[in-house]
């Protein structure tokens, strides 16, 4: 039996052993860029999705959701001015995240604006949007502004002090959950177990960028890709926590998402997941890399 004090020690070691903030700082920069891209892609159709007279009128939204979802739009006057204000605030917050300026506040602003936009029309959001909300929420509590930031520069600090990486650990666990829970959900489907799921995904036009080549429409390819996806998603749950396996699995996930990007239109989902995978890079390796690149 594992003693309670051993569990407590393992918990403390995992969540609170101090480490330099380079990983969370790199994540902050990439996340800020993705958050900006997400808003810029949303903007051209923002009035259609969020406008008082769009496909989900204010009255219909109020009737369905009322006060159940947090959104600034509930308190702002209807009209394009409010949409512009929320997107403007969002872009400002995301830009500040990239620069590392007032980092916790910027993360809070991005969380609030993302949530406001998504909640005003939840049915046009995707898994990547949900993950971005969680990422921005966890960033609020992180030390992401302690390195590679204007915050650190303005504070006149030298090398960043190692600190408890608990928010980074939660981000890593969150990413790991996404893969593992996707694996569990897929295992309930017959086509995933039989190895035909990727065939169907590549044949239906909703997500594909272009018709798959003939070789990729065969049963053997579908089985390879379907079962390969299951193995990878499972592995990124528990096995990514084994230090020796971490980088090979992260590299496999990067190849997986880049492959999806070529064949399928899942908008920013790939970019968001790749940003999340950055959290698995050791801050010590990042420090060595940066020192090697810019001695």
């Amino acid at each position, binding site marked *: 039996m594992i003693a309670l004090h051993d569990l407590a020690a393992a918990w403390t070691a995992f*969540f609170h052993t101090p480490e330099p903030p380079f990983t969370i700082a790199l994540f902050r920069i990439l996340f800020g860029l993705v958050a900006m891209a997400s808003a810029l*892609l*949303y903007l051209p*159709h923002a009035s259609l*999705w969020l406008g008082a*007279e*769009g*496909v*989900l*009128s204010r009255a*219909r939204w109020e009737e*369905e959701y009322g006060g*159940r*979802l*947090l959104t600034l739009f509930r308190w702002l006057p209807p009209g394009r001015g409010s949409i512009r204000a929320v997107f403007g605030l969002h872009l400002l917050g995301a830009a500040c995240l990239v620069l590392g300026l007032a980092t916790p506040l910027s993360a809070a602003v991005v969380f609030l604006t*993302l949530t406001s936009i998504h*909640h005003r029309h939840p*049915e*046009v*959001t*995707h*898994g990547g949007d*949900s993950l971005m909300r*969680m990422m921005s*929420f966890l960033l609020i*509590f992180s030390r992401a502004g302690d390195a590679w930031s204007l915050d650190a520069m303005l504070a006149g600090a030298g090398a960043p002090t190692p600190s*408890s990486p*608990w928010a980074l*650990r*939660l981000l890593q*666990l969150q990413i790991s*959950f996404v*893969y593992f*829970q*996707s694996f569990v*959900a*897929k295992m*309930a*489907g*017959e*086509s*995933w177990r039989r190895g*035909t*799921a990727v*065939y*169907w*995904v590549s044949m*239906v*036009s*909703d*997500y*594909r960028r272009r018709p798959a080549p003939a070789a990729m*429409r*065969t*049963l053997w390819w579908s089985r390879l890709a379907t079962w390969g996806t299951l193995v990878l998603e499972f592995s990124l749950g528990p096995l990514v926590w084994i230090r020796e396996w971490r980088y090979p699995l992260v590299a496999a996930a990067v190849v997986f998402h880049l492959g999806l990007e070529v064949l399928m*239109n*899942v*908008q*920013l*989902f790939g970019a968001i997941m790749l940003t999340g995978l950055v959290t698995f890079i050791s801050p010590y390796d990042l420090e060595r890399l940066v020192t090697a690149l810019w001695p």
Partner: protein
Amino acid sequence: MTGGAILVDAFIAIYLFVAWSWGQPSDSWLGRAVAPFTRPVLWLGLGQTWGMFAPDPAKVEGHLTAVITTAGGDRIEWAPPRMADLGYGEAFRWFRHQKYEASVLDGDTGYLRPALAEYLLRLHADREPVRVDLVYRDHDVPGPGDEGSDEPERRELVFFTYPEPS
């Protein structure tokens, strides 16, 4: 241990518990245990279920069309853009239309249907529209090895009419 450290550990534990338990059947012990957190978690947008193309991806090519009928009997067709017809950059920008189409077709989000009909009535107000029919058109996708066989049967279903019959 300081009060701050206890708060942080409690926050970590609650976050992990909610992430792990969210979406469990409400009659399971995990579902019952996470129930007290449901309202605040939903309000904050931190609820999560993950499962792209799960449990099974679609095996039909199905799309939404809206047919607007005017007072003069004319018919106007409206349909979201097909992602497969768009270029790389366009598909990024128009991606949410695909999500929207899937949501309108999904019976769990029925409130979107009258909202879409009302939008289309406003959009074509100058042509005196009186009725909107939402139509689902689909056909089976050939299975592995069946490609090139007979032309699939095309189906059409009017699944919503506005104004809704009383």
